[in-house]
């Protein structure tokens, strides 16, 4: 965090100055490690072992926050009698199909819930659908708001007992054997987090892509969620699980998603085989209880925002205009489509996949097989210039004269040359003012897509397939000489309007009858009463620490999600010290320094009437209002594709055998078995080292926004790998010299940095060396500095829930000296693959 989010880290340092104990758990010793109470070096790809052992420590010592756990989680809920755990099946959950490598999740459901019929998709069998929206997670396989439960926690089929049994094998000894963390260090951590949780205290966890970029990535986060729920650390000040995101508005681009599986506000894109009309879609996409129960209002308002008067009740509000999914249409599937020739045209907008995505060669082979490519950026990034300077040109695998891709480089406006909102890592929208016009041909992406849309509409005829574009609401005021569309007008459309064009103040005003329109229901209220709330700038010196008058956080300007849980079931603060949002019986509402993430006037003793829907079906003691049962889910009965509980599996490429189960890697992981994507065999002596990739303070992602800047280039001039003195000695690597890193994909050369910060890990008497590589360099980018592409090393193997690649843990070989040039490089890789 000190390295990649330095200014956010000032708050960690302040907390530490006030007595907070800070641990840093990371394969790599960074500026964070240098400033904490305890740094724990861990083998990359083993965090579920550590988190599982912490869960086991809590459960076997009775250290869970029992009142919180009983009232606010599904610990007491009973699970289907057909469910079988990894304990019963040596690393598999019930429902696994060896042939397809997929799970049928129906046996994971709560007792009494009838799993809905899934139509056969992708390969013929029933299986868990991946990359769903958040409404999948809340769907609960038709879960009722009050499933059968055993509050005594003695029934062997209650979640608490299942959890306890599942994690019993996650011991400190296992942590030592798999993670490389000694038992005394484990105990220090376990004692610290449990002592610092409960009524009086809270503990927070912070993670980043070190947890997500794995073939079991979603389950890493799930494991942390279980731990935090058991300790009562969710929805409370100083608690939670913070995802530190890496780009200025990557949160915003998830909320208003340029993602294949979602529509704005985490609404699922419709699926051809799962959904017919709007009614059928709504029936299947989300639970009827909890806030997703209002999804008709969210979806209809979105369709009204997009198709305006053309969207009517009679035509299902033009739900049929939405294109349908049939499976994985994610980034890596798209690249394979490029190599296969089905994807002809590609827009790359402020991203640089030739350097930033796993298996860079596959990326570039895809680019080289397009008909046309549009790259919009500030700099000539590698994705724009691959046709003349990609590594494949040097090896002879590609020839410039043979590449038919037509390339348009469209220069972008910088952040100061356009106005609009970023959503930061805390869901906070902040409006940026425009300081000046962009130079020459530089234009904002708003300008580009608006004017492109206008041109496309002019070119279309009256064909049926053109109607969704022709009828689209696409009319924004144009400002200035450059005719930039008015970003505030777009933000107002996102906020939503009611009858007569009145701007909506709250998502509660959204209606399912077509009388409201709203581009993103969770952002409704950002323009309440005609005020751009994201532009508010009351100085921090003039308001309290929650700072509600700086920008605007979704939803409804709430700063801590699920903050009803900061009070006990009766609505009283858990303690004076941790007082936050609580029930004021005199006023008849929830009060506190934050906006309550709960109906303001729903009393703690509210009991839902029989047959209640949406939020009315949740009791006054149910804080997790997006879930069908209002509870935090220790156990996930539906919505995940690789199991209801996190289990440790080794990375797809690992030098270590899985000591926990007979299953080596995630049984449901997605591999791409193609010649462009060869894998290192697991446990292969040819690839004995573990590598992980990282970032540096002085650079940003693929370097396009940092390598061309002399200030930053001078601070971190060369691509390097960091290794331990012992590894350097064993391999003859010299500090400041060169090393060649080899995987089945390719080999790259990096400068060697030998430091004691990297320690060889002792695992059950065996030594495992790790290689740490920042990935900011590339072959061009108008860079003042260049270097080999670290992301050419990882393979494409994906988490089965979200299709994120495993680039944080893989295996490699390391050789002293520079890599071979030209065809000699290909010969080297051939020898590794077949030698």
């Amino acid at each position: 965090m000190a390295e990649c989010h330095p200014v956010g880290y000032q708050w960690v340092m302040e907390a530490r100055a006030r007595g907070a104990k800070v641990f840093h758990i990371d394969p790599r010793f960074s500026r964070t490690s240098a400033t904490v109470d305890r740094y724990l070096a861990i083998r990359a790809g083993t965090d579920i072992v550590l988190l599982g052992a912490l869960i086991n420590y809590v459960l076997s010592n009775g250290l869970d926050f029992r009142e919180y756990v009983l009232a606010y989680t599904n610990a007491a809920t009973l699970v289907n009698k057909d469910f079988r755990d990894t304990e019963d099946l040596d690393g598999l959950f019930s429902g696994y199909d060896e042939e397809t490598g997929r799970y049928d999740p129906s046996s994971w459901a709560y007792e009494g819930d009838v799993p809905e019929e899934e139509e056969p998709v992708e390969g013929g069998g029933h299986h868990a659908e991946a990359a769903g929206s958040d409404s999948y997670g809340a769907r609960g396989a038709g879960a009722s708001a009050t499933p059968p439960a055993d509050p005594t926690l003695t029934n062997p089929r209650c979640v608490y007992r299942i959890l306890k049994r599942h994690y019993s094998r996650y011991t400190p000894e296992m942590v030592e054997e798999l993670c490389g963390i000694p038992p005394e260090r484990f105990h220090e951590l376990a004692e610290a987090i449990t002592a610092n949780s409960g009524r009086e205290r809270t503990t927070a966890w912070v993670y980043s892509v070190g947890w997500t970029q794995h073939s079991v990535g979603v389950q890493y986060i799930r494991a942390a969620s279980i731990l935090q729920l058991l300790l009562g650390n969710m929805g409370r000040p100083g608690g939670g699980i913070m995802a530190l995101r890496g780009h200025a508005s990557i949160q915003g681009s998830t909320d208003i998603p340029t993602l294949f599986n979602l529509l704005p506000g985490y609404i699922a894109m419709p699926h051809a085989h799962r959904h017919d009309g709007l009614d059928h879609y709504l029936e299947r996409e989300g639970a009827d209880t909890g806030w997703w129960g209002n999804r008709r209002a969210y979806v209809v308002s979105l369709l009204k925002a997009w198709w305006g008067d053309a969207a009517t009740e009679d035509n299902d509000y033009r739900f049929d205009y939405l294109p349908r999914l049939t499976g994985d249409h994610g980034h890596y599937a798209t690249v394979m489509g490029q190599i296969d020739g089905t994807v002809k045209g590609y827009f790359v907008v402020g991203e640089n996949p030739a350097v930033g995505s796993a298996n860079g060669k596959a990326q570039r082979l895809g680019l080289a097989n397009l008909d046309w490519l549009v790259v919009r950026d500030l700099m000539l990034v590698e994705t724009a210039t691959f046709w003349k300077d990609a590594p494949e040109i040097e090896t002879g695998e590609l020839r410039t004269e043979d590449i038919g891709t037509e390339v348009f480089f469209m220069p972008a406006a910088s952040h100061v040359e356009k106005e609009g909102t970023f959503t930061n890592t805390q869901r906070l929208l902040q409006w940026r003012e425009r300081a000046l016009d962009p130079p020459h041909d530089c234009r904002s992406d708003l300008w580009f897509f608006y004017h492109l849309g206008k041109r496309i509409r002019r070119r279309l005829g009256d064909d049926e397939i053109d109607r969704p574009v022709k009828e689209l609401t696409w009319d924004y005021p144009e400002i200035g000489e450059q005719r930039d569309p008015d970003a505030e007008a777009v933000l107002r459309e996102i906020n939503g309007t009611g009858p007569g064009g009145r701007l909506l103040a709250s998502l509660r005003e959204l209606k399912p009858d077509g009388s409201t329109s709203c581009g993103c229901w969770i952002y409704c209220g950002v323009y309440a009463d005609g005020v751009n709330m994201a532009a508010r700038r009351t100085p921090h010196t003039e308001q309290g620490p929650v700072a509600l008058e700086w920008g605007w956080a979704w939803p409804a300007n709430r700063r801590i999600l699920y903050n009803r849980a900061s009070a006990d079931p009766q609505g009283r603060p858990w303690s004076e010290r941790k007082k936050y949002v609580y029930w004021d019986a005199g006023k008849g509402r929830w009060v506190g320094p934050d906006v309550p993430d709960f109906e303001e006037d729903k009393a703690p003793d509210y009991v839902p009437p029989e047959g209640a829907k949406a939020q009315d079906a949740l009791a006054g003691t149910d804080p997790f209002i997006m879930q069908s049962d209002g509870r935090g889910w220790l156990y996930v009965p539906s919505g995940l594709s690789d199991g209801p509980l996190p289990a440790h599996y080794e990375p797809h490429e690992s030098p270590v055998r899985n000591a926990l189960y007979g299953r080596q890697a995630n049984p449901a992981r997605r591999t791409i078995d193609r010649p462009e994507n060869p894998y290192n065999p697991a446990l292969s002596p040819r690839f004995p080292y573990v590598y992980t990739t990282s970032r540096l303070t002085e650079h940003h992602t693929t370097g396009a926004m940092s390598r061309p800047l002399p200030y930053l280039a001078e601070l971190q001039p060369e691509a390097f790998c960091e290794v331990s003195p012992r590894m350097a000695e064993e391999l003859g690597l010299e500090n400041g010299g060169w090393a060649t890193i080899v995987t089945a994909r390719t080999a790259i050369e990096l400068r060697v940095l030998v430091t004691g910060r990297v320690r060889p890990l002792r695992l059950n008497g065996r030594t495992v060396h790790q290689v740490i590589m920042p990935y900011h360099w590339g072959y061009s980018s108008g860079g003042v500095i260049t270097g080999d592409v670290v992301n050419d090393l990882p393979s494409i193997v994906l988490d089965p829930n979200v299709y994120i690649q495993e680039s944080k843990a893989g295996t490699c070989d390391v050789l002293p000296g520079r890599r071979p040039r030209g065809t000699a490089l290909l010969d080297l890789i051939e020898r590794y693959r077949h030698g």
Partner: protein
Amino acid sequence: MGGGRLSRWPVIRQLKGEDGRGQAARSARTDALRPRVEGAETVARSVCPYCAVGCGQLVYVKDGKVTQIEGDPDSPISRGRLCPKGSASKQLVTHPGRQTKVLYRRPYGTEWEPLDLETAMDMIADRVVRTRRETWQQTHEGQEVRRTLGIASLGGATLDNEENYLMKKLYTALGAIQVENQARI
């Protein structure tokens, strides 16, 4: 400060034991120096474009040029601070290596060629319309899908919400579903 010219010379004052970091370091040149931001004609309130912390920035402009970018002391997130990247962001928007003109590489071409912005926009629109029509899928395995797998898009995490919104809206209406960004990576 009394005394002659020599006694006002900072070196003398520092040798005499005054604290070299304070008044004793002042010179006539120091007194003549003005902060870069002082002459700014406008100041825009902005947000750092690098990581997702969202530090406040103040962008100072004079004569149509960015003269300085500093941390916004009012921000409850950053309290005026910026990291090395945020502090270098003036260079990000002003450095001479920034590409400000449209470039075109024709199929099988070996060099970039210049291209007029309006022409480029028309050419791109032509290609979208053509590719969409050529790759249109009305049905897939007997189900209505109304889409094209011929056009894909990557990027969004560095853009504004309003930009992502228009992108998703336009792509969806066109039937392009392979729309992705860094959040998947």
